[in-house]
């Protein structure tokens, strides 16, 4: 029995990756949930919005790299991130003006807006593939590790190594900053309060003199920022590929729904729930169990509950189980 090594192995293979992935999902799910709260539809184009923002960031990263600008150990992409966010904002505001506004004025049923977002999804997906191509792009540079397996082993003298990638560290720090800023904005500023009021009760908000178009515009801008940050962090951590980002829609929806649509706190809880269950169910526990259990009890096989290909399936099984018992998610989300 060696609990310390067991814990290090657990952190290395389960906790750290799941925390990083969970932060990325939570940021994505926050965007979905904000749109649902304010505009009252599930945005199927969210995955491709993330892809677009990330693509702009990558293009700027390449530009900066060609100029020889870098941030030293930190990826250059962070410098390009604001430009990516601006590009994404421009795209979303343009989409809102030419596509969604019409249906808002018509007071179309929410499900029509969902179908409209399907059309937007096709266009954005095509646009991204058109500009950057369908292939894998790696754009992370700078230092690869904050703590590498070797330094950790030298430092602690433990048998198990622990590695923290720079991208994982950046992901968690950025996510904390972004979420804190978002909650401060929603709870403390006048505009944020007007957004929450609009989300709670549209008619009452209109009566109190809140300008709906302004609320909608700010929502799109925040969503653009969240989507781009989530997309860039995911791309730094893994890699950028338009199709993968389209598929990210699935766990992101699952996170937003598990938490309850329209509830920002729920989106964060949902993101981590989905990430942890995905990683834990598909992780081979042999190593951790080998350390943690007495020798006689150590498992023979890999001790893996399901093969890694079941990743997406796991998030949806969690989703279904949660919905069976709480039909509007953990944090009692809205339904229109």
């Amino acid at each position: 029995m060696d609990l310390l090594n067991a814990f290090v192995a657990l952190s290395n293979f389960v906790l750290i990756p799941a925390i990083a992935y969970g932060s990325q999902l939570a940021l994505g799910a926050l965007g979905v949930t904000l749109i649902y709260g304010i505009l009252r539809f599930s945005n199927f184009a969210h995955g491709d919005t993330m892809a677009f923002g990330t693509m702009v960031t990558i293009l700027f990263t390449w530009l900066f790299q060609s100029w020889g600008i870098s941030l030293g150990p930190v990826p250059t992409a962070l410098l390009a991130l604001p430009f990516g966010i601006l590009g994404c904002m421009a795209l979303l505001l343009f989409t809102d003006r030419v596509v969604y506004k019409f249906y808002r004025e018509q007071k179309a049923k929410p499900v029509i807006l969902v179908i409209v977002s399907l059309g937007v999804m096709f266009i954005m997906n095509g646009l991204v593939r058109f500009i950057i191509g369908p292939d894998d792009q790696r754009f992370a540079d700078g230092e690869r590790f904050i703590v590498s397996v070797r330094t950790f082993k030298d430092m602690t003298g433990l048998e198990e190594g622990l590695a923290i990638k720079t991208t994982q560290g950046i992901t968690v720090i950025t996510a904390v900053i972004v979420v804190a800023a978002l909650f401060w904005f929603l709870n403390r500023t006048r505009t944020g309060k007007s957004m929450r009021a609009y989300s709670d009760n549209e008619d009452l908000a209109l009566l109190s003199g809140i300008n709906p178009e302004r609320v909608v515009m700010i929502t799109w801008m925040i969503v653009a920022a969240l989507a781009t940050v989530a997309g860039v962090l995911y791309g730094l951590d893994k890699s950028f590929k338009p199709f993968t980002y389209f598929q990210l829609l699935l766990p992101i929806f699952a996170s937003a729904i598990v938490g309850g649509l329209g509830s920002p706190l729920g989106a964060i809880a949902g993101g981590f729930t989905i990430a942890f269950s995905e990683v834990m169910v598909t992780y081979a526990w042999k190593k951790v169990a080998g350390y943690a259990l007495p020798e006689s009890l150590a498992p023979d096989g890999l001790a893996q509950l399901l093969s890694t290909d079941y990743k997406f399936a796991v998030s949806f099984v969690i989703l279904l189980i949660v919905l069976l018992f709480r039909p509007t998610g953990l944090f009692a989300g809205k339904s229109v």
Partner: protein
Amino acid sequence: MNETVKNTALFALVAVLIIGTGFLQSWNSALFILNFGLISAIMALGVNLQWGFAGLFNVGIMGFVALGGLATVLVSMPPTTEAWAAGGGGVIVALLMGAATIVVTALVIKRMSAGWLRTVVVLVLLIGGFFVYRALFDPSVARIEAIDPASTGYLGGLNPGGAAWGWMTLVAWPVGGLLAAGVAWIIGKTALGLRSDYLAIATLGIAEIIIAVMKNEDWLSRGVKNVIGLPRPAPYEIELQSDPAFLERAASLGMDPVTASTIWVKLVYAGLFAVVLVILFVLAQRALHSPWGRMMRAIRDNENASEAMGKDVTARHLQVFILGSAICGIAGAMMTTLDGQLTPGTYQPLRFTFLIWVMVIVGGSGNNLGAVLGGFLIWFLWVQVEPMGLLLMQAITSGMTDGSPLKVHLIESAAHMRLLTMGLVLLLVLRFSPRGLIPER
């Protein structure tokens, strides 16, 4: 312009597009578009039943299509006798055991009063059941997958005659419908109680779960190793090319034997698919104009009012969900038959869920004729936008110097015009003709 003239003109347009493909490109590609158009039209009929009649937003069509494909393998492939001997019984016992666990758990939840005792019992049942299931299941699966993994390694189907009994594949079509209907029943029972977007995303996820299972359960249908060479109801090209009577007929038409045989096979499929489409269309049309169809539309337009009139909304939703999914299952089985192989890795929501939705919306939701038209028209675009985009790009870049990076990039990107076009068509129709090309009456 009255309605009949307009509808005839729209269908004539589709016919002209397909025949034009025949003259401009090749008859093989025209028939390819026709065959997949027929299948797409059937899928669109299924979605129209759910969305157009009943207003159910199902984005899990891909799952039902894949189940139809699975049924084709399970029915039409020859059984792998060694695999059955090695682990067939074990797998069946394990699956029964798994199902029993779920049933017992459901009973416990229903019968016992809520409290910590029930939670403990349920958890023990589920976790214990899972481990017993894996203990029974894994060794049998390992034995099955060990048998000649390069060509079989799965249980195989129910067709004792093998490739000689190609007609068994036709049996697989209704079986595909039944399999999809069965799964739809389970899903409907659990998920149809959900509201609005929660239902939509649940169905999206269920389709992913179905695909994940098909990709990973090698003992069932070889997973991502694919099942190829399915027996087919149409004759093989090779056989036709060595058949003197056929060669003589081809020669009298002035065609070379290879082209003639491929075209003949495609025509046989087109005939079979057209029969299925006509049957399903007539049924759907009868359903729409029956009291049942009127009730469905009443429920769609106002659930509360219909409920007040004594209609059982939940039961009707479940019913129409099963029927529509069954039609998608039939179409999925037909598609796998036409491909001659089952490749779970190729099922993607863009192609098998969202594209079908574009067909229904563009054609006209709530109108069967519209759904069929949408199926053909959008499928034609899906296939033909790529060559058209390439031509367009070549025209745009003709002024640029050869080999300039921008020119190369633009011409390479022409392949992605397809998604852009689909989105554009969908948005334009929704904006300017929101009820589709052939609106509901």
